[in-house]
């Protein structure tokens, strides 16, 4: 390096070193602060994302805030618009499935699948809340066996995904 010829006094080198220490210290402080933020947030806000079956089979989940997913039974939907309370039932969808649309349809046809009553208070009824939608709910199972949800998300795969085998088309050979 050429800075030898400048013959910087020792003080400059010292200053350089002390700046470096400052940088490292600042970096460490930021790193630790961000880690604390992430860890404390995660510990506070982490929710198990489980199935209806798992929720109902393990008493330890009762009263704890969890996230669950299930298939919406369209006939059970009841909206009390005066008090803004939504009630409906969801049916267990197994953890593993081929595709969501089929899993939802099959779950609702299965007479033995476990069901869970849901109540959501002070909520606008979402457009997507309908038969064969997948409901993802955050809330807690009460002693009365009703799941009080504070957050409701919905997915309707059957309605929008590209269809794999449209039933209407197969009738064609007979028509022709």
């Amino acid at each position: 390096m050429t800075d030898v010829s400048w013959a910087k006094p020792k003080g400059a080198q010292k200053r350089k070193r002390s700046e470096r220490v400052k940088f490292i210290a600042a970096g460490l402080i930021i790193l630790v602060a961000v880690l604390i933020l992430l860890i404390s947030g995660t510990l506070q806000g982490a929710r198990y994302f489980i199935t209806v079956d798992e929720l109902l089979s393990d008493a330890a989940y009762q009263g704890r805030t969890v996230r669950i997913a299930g298939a919406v039974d369209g006939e059970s939907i009841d909206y009390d618009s005066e008090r803004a309370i939504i009630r409906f039932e969801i049916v267990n969808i197994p953890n593993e499935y081929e595709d969501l649309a089929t899993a939802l349809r099959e779950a609702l046809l299965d007479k033995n699948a476990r069901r869970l009553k849901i109540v959501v208070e002070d909520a606008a009824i979402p457009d997507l809340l309908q038969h064969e939608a997948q409901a993802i709910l955050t809330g807690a199972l009460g002693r009365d066996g009703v799941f009080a949800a504070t957050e409701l998300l919905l997915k309707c795969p059957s309605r929008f995904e590209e269809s794999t085998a449209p039933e209407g088309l197969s009738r064609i050979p007979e028509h022709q």
Partner: protein
Amino acid sequence: MTAEIGLAALALAFALAVYAIAASAWGARKAAAGLMLSGRNAALLVFPAVLLATGCLVSALMTEQYQLAYVYSVTDPQTPAIYRFTALWGAQKGSLLLWSLLMSAFTSAAIGLNWRVERRLMPYAVAFMMATLAFFLGLSLFVENPFERWWILPDAPPAEQVISTVLIPPRAIAPSEANLRAGAEGLNPLLRHFGMVIHPPMLYLGFVGFTIPFAFAMSALASGDLSTGWIRATRRWSLIAWICLSAGLILGGRWAYDVLGWGGYWGWDPVENAAFLPWLMGTAFIHSVMIQEKRGMLKLWNMLLVIATFSAVMFGTFATRSGVIESVHSFARSQVGFPMLAFWAAMTFVALATLLWRWRRGELRDEHQFANLLSRESMFVLNNVVFIALFLAIFWGSFGLPITSELLLGVEVTIGAETFEFYVVPLFIAMYVLMGLAPLSAWGATSARRLGAALKAPLAFTAMSIGALALSGTSLVVAILGYGVALFAGFVALFEIYRGARARRRSLGEGWLRAVGALFGRNQRRYGGYIVHLGVTVIGIGVVASTVFQTETQHTIARGDTINVLDYSLRYDDFTRAQAVDGRMMNIAAVTVYRAGEEIARLRPRIDDYPQMPMKIAGAHSTLENDFYVLLMSGDRERATFRIYVNPLVNLVWWGGILLVIGTVIAAYPKVAK
């Protein structure tokens, strides 16, 4: 015929892209000019080929060729022409083709603009751009082909009689036109909104835009030309990509606000977050490249950032397209999941390995060292740290935690919106503070006293504004803090513009308007950047106000009765049912909105009955101060239920977005040659 032409064009585009990779890379390696030229020409031809393929798909959509499975799945005979066109990006297959089209357009432009100037960089850059493009074209061709058609196999067992394939199977019969028309599914009603018309292409433009700086950076690493050439060549591309990504995110928020009917615009949904992640990395990148240009520092860091931005783009595309968000299991069965994951991992690995190789040879050494904690370069580094912390927090919450917990514990652990807010609020506060401090600090070194002196005026204005807010009744600490930091950053930007103009007035005797104009003309980047900062301030104020002070209520009333919210009241006047041109029934409530006793608006919130679902269309009275936003929940002629949101200053979010775009355009606008 349209399908055949489209398919042939798609295959040709793929072949050209693959050839261009080989010819360019080999040509560059062997310094064979002819081969490099041939690679370039092949790369330039990809765009017309993809354009032809896309044109075929659009033409099939417009002319209702429902035998194409894609057309069948996203349109129906009732779909209006505009949504026939936008159905091009209404589902996976079309979206992927659009991705390739935009990518090939950007690639052609980048080759056209830079070929002469950046001779050394171009061949490898072409190879990297074509590698990305070839991958997406390959996905369209082999996995998600938009030109598949429905066929009936009379000899097959009943359950397998109807299939969709790319090539015509032997002895297949085409389904009848009438049945195809009757069965066609129509575009998702949620996507029928101007925000959805522009939002996906904007995001894609942002995504593909960041591929260009990545390709040039990789080319610099591969060719060994590690001067600032790659940054010079791609600075504008980064800014264009950044505008598109920003506009795409804001339009997405606007769509959610108008269509989803929950009075908000950002829900920390993994899909939203997947698009936000590249923006965060890209923002860090466009800031820190400035230090390399000015001071020759952070060479390694900038390479890492551009690789990380590209990697985030690929990850975002993968995450939203592969089903991994739905669950790890559905990802495993998604057709595009593994190829995308593999491509993402391979590109990231190759990029990092090349970087490591150059770094170990000592070719990425900085020309200056960090001398002072308060210098502008230090502030920029801190800004980078904040953006990366935001990136990590959001990535962790959306993907890291759910995926690792599922893999390690066998149970998925997720976090909700409130935890995301817990993560990001302190980080955004830090971002605004730095946004205020950085422009006041100097390159090289700043003394604390000088910084303090420069801070006086902006801090005084901030304090006065906060004082005025507190006097007018705002007492929430969160709100005061939020407004405070956002205003501080904004005042610094304004003050800097004022200071620059004042200096010109003093030394050159120009008038204010002329001085400001000259300032922007002389240093577009710097002052364009301040406009962007002002935009971010305006967005910040809008976000704080509309989040902290939102009012929400729901009531059922009889016709003629009113609901009171704050100083507004809403009277239910009438209820009608009407049929729209596309056949859907609309249930329309007519309401009159009063404020402080005066009529301010007549709104018609409604519920549209689409075959797939009902959809609530809000009625909104928008002013800069407030949005009065009303949804009809249910109703008949006698009684109706309304849900009302009053969202203060929410329009600042959109106006700030426009300001941000204008600022970036100023910064990126090519200088007029004198």
